[in-house]
């Protein structure tokens, strides 16, 4: 079979890089050698490296963790008065996004049932204490959500879940565009949204240190209260 390969048509390597980002470099190398248009390529694209190790429950639980992070970020900003101190248009945006993220948490938790992981503890530091810091972080967070859903949705096995995640993805993309518009940034800077793997997003979240260790506020220590 002497058909064109991905390597031969992708001279500057950009496409291969994108596939490597999505599927892992070994798979990208395989694609480079595979005949373009073959069934093998479709199968390979549909089954990126992460799919071999991640179950749908794993992916949904990570989604739940990420949605909880977002929901807590917006809810806290609302409760602390950060959102209340913003101009009307931004306030509507922030309140709407908070309500959406809380709805996402609720439904994913329901779908997972007893398989849902516990609620993590979050420490946003000063990131949601002022309107400026809040907005900047929210824009980055919404962009990251779009990249995450773009990356993980194709590796979900259950077609019903894929359909539901597409519903979340389009809403998150609207959030991101809305956020960018309000800050004066280009709502759609690129013709293609680069997907991020779950592993990559986990790394980004780890670098923010927004997920913190829960403070130990309970003990089996004998009380020394006045009695």
């Amino acid at each position: 079979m002497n058909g064109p390969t991905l390597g031969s048509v992708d001279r500057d390597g950009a496409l291969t890089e994108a596939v490597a980002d999505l599927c892992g470099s070994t798979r990208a190398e395989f694609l480079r050698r595979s005949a373009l248009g073959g069934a093998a390529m479709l199968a390979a694209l549909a089954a990126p490296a992460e799919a071999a190790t991640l179950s749908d429950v794993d992916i949904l639980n990570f989604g739940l963790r990420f949605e909880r992070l977002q929901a807590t970020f917006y809810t806290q900003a609302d409760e602390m008065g950060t959102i209340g101190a913003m101009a009307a248009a931004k306030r509507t945006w922030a309140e709407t996004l908070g309500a959406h993220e809380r709805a996402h948490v609720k439904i994913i938790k329901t779908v997972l049932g007893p398989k849902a992981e516990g609620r993590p503890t979050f420490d946003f530091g000063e990131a949601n204490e002022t309107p400026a810091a809040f907005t900047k972080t929210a824009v980055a967070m919404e962009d990251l959500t779009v990249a995450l859903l773009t990356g993980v949705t194709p590796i979900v096995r259950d077609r019903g879940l894929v359909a539901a995640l597409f519903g979340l993805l389009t809403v998150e993309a609207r959030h991101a565009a809305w956020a960018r518009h309000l800050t004066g940034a280009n709502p759609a800077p690129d013709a293609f949204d680069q997907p991020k793997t779950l592993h990559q997003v986990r790394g980004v979240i780890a670098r923010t240190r927004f997920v913190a260790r829960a403070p130990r506020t309970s003990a089996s220590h004998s009380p020394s209260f006045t009695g």
Partner: protein
Amino acid sequence: MRRRSARRARRVAVAVALAGSATAVALLAAPSERGPRGHATAAVRVPPPVAPAFTPGPPRRLGPARDRALWAPVKHAVAVRSAPDAAAPRIATLPAVTPEGTRNVVAIARRGQDRRGGRWVEARLAVLPNGRTGWVPRAALGGYGTVHTRLVVDRRALEATLYRDGRVLLRAPVAVGASGTPTPAGEFYVRNRLTRYRSATYGPVAFGTSARSPGVTDWPAGGFVGIHGTDRPDLVPGRVSHGCIRMRNPDILALARRMPVGTPVIVR
């Protein structure tokens, strides 16, 4: 002949598309059909969309802020200032750990900033005199926690009432401080929760609060007021303690299921 060769060309095109791309799959799913006069009509048999496994409920904005309070853990011991300014007088030191070995937490009274824009937090302090507040840098505290509960202890009625978002969750009789060692009045908060200890005197659960008994400062650990169970339910309700708020064991267990750390405690 022309018609035959045209059909053959079409078959080849379909075969190429089949092998080449997902578009071919879509084409196969919607094959062309012939109308009554033998002309090809538009392919219209589009498969129905896949039903989503879930759809979120309607988004809800936050309700009015009734019984909403912020608290935060203390990351490291820090000097407490009288104003949101590193040069302001030091009025106390906020420890990172409580006498019971749990992470110290503070209730947040206000947030502010210094002249350089640095973020500060006004915290309620577990020091004497009761009711003092002081300023600490935001960076000394961990992530905020939010509670929607409030415990009101009525010393005259000898009754405790737990509210959540303004609604009564629990009401129970209590024993409070005797006349020589009264339970202090004021606004405090729950600092920790102790369980599985071996002391029937405190019942099955004890909550530590930020309140301190002014009359028993020589008590071990500094005379902190607790809310706990008892091995003398016959003394509840009453005015018998050294300042602590005692509840019957079934009541303290019910409270423990509903009252998180950080809950404001109002004693009046």
